[in-house]
C-alpha cells in the first residue's frame, strides 16, 4: 500500500498580473515538510491552495485523495493554523477552538472535551475563556495551533507556527509536530527560523518567486546542487601542510586557513574526489581530527538557492 500523498500537479496561481506560484509539481509524503523561502515567495499561497482558501488558475491539487474544492471532506482531515491572527468578534479562545468541532458534527459535550484537550496540549487552558482579541501575539499563535490540532487531523498545515512563541513552548510545539509526523501524518509548515527547520524537518521545499527551486531531504538537496562548491571544515594538527596537499587537487576551489592554524575551510567541486584525497592524506600519516560538511544545513542551502540570508 502506498503512503497517502499530497500532490500538486502543474499548479499555477496568479493574483492579477502578479505571480503567486508557477508550475508547481510536488509530491509530499507524510512527515514534517518545511516550506522555506523569502517573504512573498509563495509559501502562504501554497498553503492556501492546499486548504482551498484560494484556487489554482491551472493544475490540480489532491490532499490524501481529496480535492481542496471539497471542504466538507478535506477539512475533516486537515487543520490549518493560518497567519491571520484575527478571530470572529467576541470569540473566546475556547469558542474559537470548539466552534469548528461543533460544525464538524460533534455534540457540544464532545466538542468541549476535544477543545479542552487541544488547549491543554498547547498550555492555553487558563486563558481559554478570555477573548481572543485580548491575547498576546504568542497566545494567538497557540490558540490557532490548538484549533488546527483539535480535530486530530491527518494533515496539519502551519503558517509560521513558531513565530512569537517563547523558547519553552517552542520546544513543546516542535515535539508535538514530531509526534504527529511519527504517526504517519503530514505536517507542513513554513518558517523563517532556518535552524529549527533544519532540526525538525524530514524534508524541505525551497521556494522563491513562486517557483520550487529544490525539494527533498536537506542532505539530498545539497547533493543535487553541483554548481555550488561543497564546504568542509577540517580540524588537524598540521593544517598548513594538509592545505598544501589539498591545493594540488584540481577539484579544490578555495582553502581558508583558520586563525588558530589548526583548522581549514575547504571548498570543493567534487565531494567524492575530495573524500578520496582526504583519505590519502590521512593514510600518509597526517592526523585528521575531524571533518564536517558545513553547508549541508538549510541555512547554507537557502543562501545557495535563494541568495542572501534569512
Amino acid at each position, binding site marked *: 500500500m502506498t503512503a497517502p500523498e499530497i500532490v500538486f500537479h502543474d499548479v499555477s496561481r496568479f*493574483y492579477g498580473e502578479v505571480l503567486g506560484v508557477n508550475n508547481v509539481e510536488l509530491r509530499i509524503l507524510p512527515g514534517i515538510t518545511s516550506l522555506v523561502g523569502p517573504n512573498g515567495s509563495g509559501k502562504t499561497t501554497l498553503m*492556501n491552495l492546499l*486548504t*482551498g*482558501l*484560494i*484556487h489554482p488558475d491551472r493544475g490540480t491539487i489532491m490532499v490524501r485523495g481529496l480535492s481542496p*474544492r471539497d*471542504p*466538507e*471532506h*478535506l*477539512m*475533516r482531515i486537515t487543520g*490549518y493554523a*493560518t497567519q*491571520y491572527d*484575527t*478571530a*470572529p*468578534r*467576541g470569540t473566546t479562545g475556547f469558542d*474559537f477552538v470548539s*466552534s*469548528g468541532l*461543533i*460544525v*464538524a*458534527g460533534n455534540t457540544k459535550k464532545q466538542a468541549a472535551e476535544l477543545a479542552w484537550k487541544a488547549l491543554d496540549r498547547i498550555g492555553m487552558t487558563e486563558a481559554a475563556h478570555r477573548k481572543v482579541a485580548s491575547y498576546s501575539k504568542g497566545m494567538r499563535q497557540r490558540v490557532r495551533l490548538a484549533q488546527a490540532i483539535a*480535530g486530530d487531523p491527518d494533515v496539519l498545515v502551519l503558517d509560521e507556527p513558531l513565530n512569537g512563541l517563547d523558547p519553552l513552548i517552542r520546544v513543546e510545539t516542535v515535539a508535538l509536530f514530531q509526534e504527529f509526523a511519527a504517526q504517519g501524518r503530514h505536517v507542513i509548515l513554513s518558517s523563517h527560523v532556518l535552524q529549527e527547520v533544519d532540526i525538525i524537518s524530514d524534508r524541505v521545499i525551497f521556494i522563491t518567486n513562486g517557483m520550487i527551486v529544490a525539494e527533498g531531504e536537506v542532505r539530498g538537496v545539497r547533493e543535487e546542487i553541483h554548481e555550488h562548491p561543497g564546504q568542509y571544515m577540517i580540524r588537524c594538527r598540521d593544517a598548513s601542510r594538509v592545505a598544501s596537499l589539498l591545493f594540488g587537487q584540481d577539484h579544490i576551489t578555495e582553502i581558508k586557513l583558520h586563525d588558530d592554524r589548526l583548522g581549514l575551510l575547504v571548498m570543493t567541486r567534487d565531494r567524492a574526489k575530495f573524500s578520496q584525497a582526504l583519505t590519502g592524506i590521512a593514510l600518509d600519516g597526517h592526523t585528521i581530527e575531524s571533518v564536517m560538511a558545513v553547508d549541508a544545513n538549510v541555512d547554507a542551502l537557502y543562501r545557495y538557492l535563494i541568495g542572501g540570508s534569512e
Partner: protein
Amino acid sequence: MNAAFRIRQTWVIARLHLGRVFFSRRSFWVYLLAMFPAVVFLAHGIQMKVQHRWTPSRVTPVALLESISIGAGENEVIEKAGTPIKDGSFQNKRQKQEIRHMQYYDGERWWYLSFRDGILQHKNSRQIFNFTQDRLAFAGMFQFYYLRLAIFFGCLGIFANLFRGEMLDKTLHFWFLGPARREVLLAGKYLAGVIAAVLVFTVGAVLGFVMMLWPHHAAQVTAYWQDQGLSHLFWYASAAALGCIGYGSLFLAFGLLFRNPIIPAIVVLFWENINGVLPKLLQKISVLHYAQSLCPVPVPTSDSWPLLFRLLISPADPPSPFTAVFGFFIVTALILWVSSLIVRRLEINYSTE
C-alpha cells in the same frame, strides 16, 4: 454526509452567528429603525390620552356646531353655541383687521373657528381619537417608512455584513476552514440573518400596530379586532417578514459581490422606489412589489399631490397574495442560488479588501 447532516450543520452555523447578529454594535441602529414606528405611535397615543384628560367638561352639541356656517357673525355664533372654551383676538395692524379665534369641544372633537372683522372665515374640527385616520397613518408609515426604508436599510446592515463584514475583519477564513460545504455556510449565515431580521422587524411592526391601537376606545378596538384587526396584523407581519427574507437574500449577494455594498444598495433603493412607473414585467423584479401587495390597507393618495409623486408611491398593479408570496420565494431562491455559485468560487484574499 447526507442531507439531514447538512441541515443540522446549517442550523449549527446559524446558531453560532445569531449572537453576533443580535448583539453586535452594528445591530444597534437596526433596532432603532425597527422600533421607530412603535415610538412614534406611542408618543401619539400619549398625546391623545393627555389631550383627552384635559378636555373640558362643557360640551357643545355637534349638531349645533355643524349648523354654524361660514360668514356668520361673532355674536350670532356665541348666541348659538354659547361662550367658547378658548377665545383670543388680536389686531392685524398691517391689514388693519381684527382677528379672533374661538374653540369649542363637542365631546370627541375640537372645533376651531376663525373670524376676521367679526365674520367667520374658517371652521374646522379635529377629532382626538380618530381610529380610521390612525389606521391609515399606520398603513402609510408601514408602506413608506417601514418597508421602503427601515427594513431595506436594516437588512442591508445585517446581511451585507455576514460575508463582507468578516472579510473586513479578516475572519472569514475561520468559517471557510470548517468541514462544511460553502453552500451550507451560506445557508447558515443567511438563516441567522433571517431569524434576526424577521424577529426584529416583525416585532417592530407588531409593536407599532399595538401602539397605534392602544389609546383608542376599548369597544372600538375590540370590534376592529373581531372584524379585520387580526388579519391586518397578520399581513403586516407577513409583509415585514417577507421583506426581510427578500432584501436579506439580495444584500447577502451584494456582500459577496461588492467591496462596498452601499452603492448597489442605493441603486436598488432607487429601482424599488420607481417600481410603480416601470413596465409590468420589470415591476415583478422587486421585493417591494411583492411585499407591498401583502399590505392590507391601501394608502389613499390625494389628487392635489404632484403626479410624479403619486406615481412613485402608488404600488404597482398588485398581484394576489398567493402570487405575491410565490413570486417572492422564486426571486429569493434565484438570488440565493446565484450567491451559492459566488461563494463556491470565493477566495480568501484579505489584502485586496
